[in-house]
């Protein structure tokens, strides 16, 4: 790929990027969120048409305008969110968009089954083909995505942040698959921002920053520190969570149970204590009960069993900013007002005091440095970081006692992330202007990003299959927590209990 550029509106996503890779290599493409990694690969796989630049395969110029152009050239991509249809079976998903050379219109189920068996013998990848996607875990779904790609027998395989949703053991499996593919002469392009993995597996590394290539290297000549320096511009910070003084209990869950819509168990016997001045980190692979736990902790739903002790007002930063946190068609004022509808200071009987609310919102815009034309600008028109600031401004007001945050820094750049954590530390009463006796809040951080939890949390738990397991922070290694996240059957959880795992207090 030569001199590829792409602009989205005024924002430059890619600026004169060149990218070359060879058959039989594992090529890592790294960079922060928004550095342009995914956009570059979407150009290669035909999902995004570049403004300028050209693409060559084996020396021949190719014009790739649609995904099917890319497919013809042998390029395939496994997406971050696997592009599968939940209500359909594995087999149906594999057949979508791939006729396997059959001319007729009848679905080639037999052919696909045979091919799947061939693939199993070759790569060890296997999935029951009659299962519905919605019954599979995220890791299994990714396998289906990979199978779908492999069935096309592509030359170039692009993996877009495949490891961010996987637990360490699954990551290891994926890495060995990469090696096998490269041995077969395929090109594997691996997009990630996890540097350890990069050093471990790559043949070559390309670093993108703000839409430009800032470094091309090989693992032998670099290390995590150097890479993170070129990637971010500064070294990854040390643990900021030098624990402060801890106060009284603000929230307590005792043998809490939650059921899904079909009566299936989502949370089982969860015990948790949150005290003032501490941040409780809850790690785990998404879909193990995170949504239910977050909603119970924030008082949005009542448990189906057990007792809950919560403060009257709780701040909550949900996972899905566009869907759950903000109303895109509403202005900043009205979105902040969502947090004030039950606040007596901004109401007079049943009436809302809009004048007072707007005055307050203008104050927040200045205090949090929200960049907007005015307080009535629709939040859909704001950038992701500014949107999260609006959410933060609204929720911090309710967080005097407790704040629940789910994947709060997802999709934010480094600056916005560090702004967020500065606010968190202030909430815990750990900024330098305050001493520990002042009002401190408790924070629960529910995140699938293990690094983030290890870096900031005072207490660490792992949520696995609806059960909450306490982890001794001093003893636990990243690998150990990773193993817990994937623990498998409960017997194994019990067996690892000896080496540092105890049931929640």
């Amino acid at each position, binding site marked *: 790929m030569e001199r590829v550029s792409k602009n989205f509106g005024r924002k430059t996503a890619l600026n004169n990027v060149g990218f070359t890779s060879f058959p039989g290599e594992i090529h890592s493409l790294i960079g922060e969120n928004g550095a342009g990694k995914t956009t570059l690969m979407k150009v290669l796989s035909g999902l995004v048409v570049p403004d300028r630049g050209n693409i060559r395969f084996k020396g021949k110029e190719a014009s790739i305008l649609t995904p099917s152009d890319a497919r013809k050239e042998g390029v395939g991509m496994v997406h971050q969110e696997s592009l599968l249809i939940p209500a359909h079976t594995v087999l149906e998903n594999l057949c979508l968009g791939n006729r396997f050379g059959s001319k007729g219109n009848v679905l080639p189920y037999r052919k696909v089954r045979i091919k799947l068996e061939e693939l199993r013998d070759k790569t060890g990848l296997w999935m029951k083909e009659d299962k519905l996607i919605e019954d599979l875990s995220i890791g299994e779904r990714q396998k289906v995505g990979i199978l779908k790609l492999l069935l096309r027998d592509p030359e170039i395989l692009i993996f877009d942040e495949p490891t961010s949703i996987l637990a360490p053991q699954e990551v290891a499996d994926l890495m060995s698959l990469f090696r096998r593919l490269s041995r077969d002469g395929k090109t594997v392009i691996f997009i990630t921002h996890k540097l350890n993995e990069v050093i471990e597996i790559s043949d070559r590394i390309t670093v993108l920053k703000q839409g430009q290539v800032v470094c091309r290297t090989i693992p032998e000549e670099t290390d995590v520190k150097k890479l993170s320096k070129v990637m971010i511009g500064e070294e990854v910070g040390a643990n900021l969570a030098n624990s402060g003084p801890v106060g009284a209990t603000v929230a307590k869950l005792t043998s809490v149970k939650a059921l899904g819509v079909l009566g299936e168990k989502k949370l089982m016997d969860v015990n948790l204590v949150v005290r003032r001045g501490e941040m409780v980190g809850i790690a785990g692979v998404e879909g193990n009960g995170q949504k239910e736990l977050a909603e119970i902790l924030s008082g*949005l739903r009542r448990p189906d069993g057990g007792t809950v002790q919560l403060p009257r007002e709780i701040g909550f930063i949900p996972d899905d900013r566009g869907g759950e946190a903000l109303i895109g068609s509403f202005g900043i004022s009205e*979105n902040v007002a*969502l947090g004030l*509808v039950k606040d007596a200071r901004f109401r007079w009987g049943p*009436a809302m005091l809009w004048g007072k609310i707007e005055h307050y919102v203008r104050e927040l815009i200045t205090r949090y440095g929200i960049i907007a034309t005015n307080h009535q600008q629709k939040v859909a028109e704001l950038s992701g970081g500014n949107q999260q600031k609006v959410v933060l401004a609204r929720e911090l007001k309710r967080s005097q006692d407790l704040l629940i945050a789910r994947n709060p820094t997802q999709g934010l750049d480094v600056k916005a992330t560090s702004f967020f954590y500065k606010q968190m530390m202030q909430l815990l009463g750990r900024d330098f202007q305050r001493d520990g006796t002042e009002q401190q809040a408790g924070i629960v951080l529910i995140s699938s990003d293990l690094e983030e939890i290890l870096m900031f949390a005072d207490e660490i738990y792992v949520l696995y299959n609806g059960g909450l397991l306490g982890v001794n922070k001093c003893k636990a290694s990243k690998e150990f927590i990773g193993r817990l996240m994937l623990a498998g059957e409960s017997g194994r959880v019990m067996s690892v209990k000896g080496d540092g795992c105890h049931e929640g207090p």
Partner: protein
Amino acid sequence: MKGHDAWVALAVSLLALLLTVFLTTGALVLGGYSPLLTFQSLLAGSFGSLDSFFGVTLVRAVPLIVIGLAVTVAFKSGVWNIGAEGQFYAGAIAGVWVGLNVGDYPSYFSVPLVFLSASVAGALWALLPALMRTRLGVGEVVTTILMNFVAIHLVSYIVRWPLQEERGVFPNTDLIDESVRLPTIVPGTGLHLGFVVAVILVIGLSFFFSNTSMGFQLRAMGGSQEATRVSGRSSIPQLLIVTFLLSGSLAGLAGGIEIAGRSFALYEGLSPGWGYTAIAVALLADLNFIAVLFTGIFFGALEGGAGAMQREAGIPATWVAGIEALVLLSVLASDRLFRRLLRPRRKED
């Protein structure tokens, strides 16, 4: 921003009307009628005289405005209540039953009683779809449509069996007593107090939605249900029930007003599809309560002028149904086109 939006909405509505006139003219020419004569008679029949404006247009507009408000309440809150027709009939049934049985009381007692019972009946008619939506997750589009058919058949049962007129010949109820009827507000015309009720409702709802906490939460729910639940800490089932009940009671009240103000009796086809026409009324008003007052009068003029059109231009009154559909289609078309045209320009400011 807000002022800007209002101008866009007004421009969209005007463009839609222009488009309607254009398309209607085309259809009339194709049908071999004189467009000029048609529009002339339509205008004369609806605005031409004191009687045609107060006695025909505004009287026709009353149910359209009130049901239009019901639809606006629902659509604004993200509830697809297609069942205003059924809720109107439920209100009319309750209204006529109370009207026939209330006994001899002064009208300041019995008329409000008719209104109250009609509102409650309309609300109850909306309650089943509401519960199916909140308890069972069944979408309200299909259930409210089904409830319309149930109501229509219920009316045809009631006017033939339990409440049939005394002689038992015609499929309609007896007339309600003078004391239960609404007083006329413009002497010499049929314009009744219901119009004043409609205007008060317009103002009240407009205030309710923009200035109260409940109204704001309903609006927020229309914007995003998930965000209202998670970030507003509001109970969505509760808000949904409020919406259904409010919307249903308004449509039901329209039935009560119609009984006490104009028809004085219940019969099949009391509503010529007002529940559906009201969707056009609400959308032409861009779901703005104040604007519903005017779009309701506009549609009232169309339906009111239909008679004159048939008499003088020889055009069957059913044409008006076609014109109404054209209005709705034109609103949709011009709304989409207008906003599409404006979008790139907005990004730059």
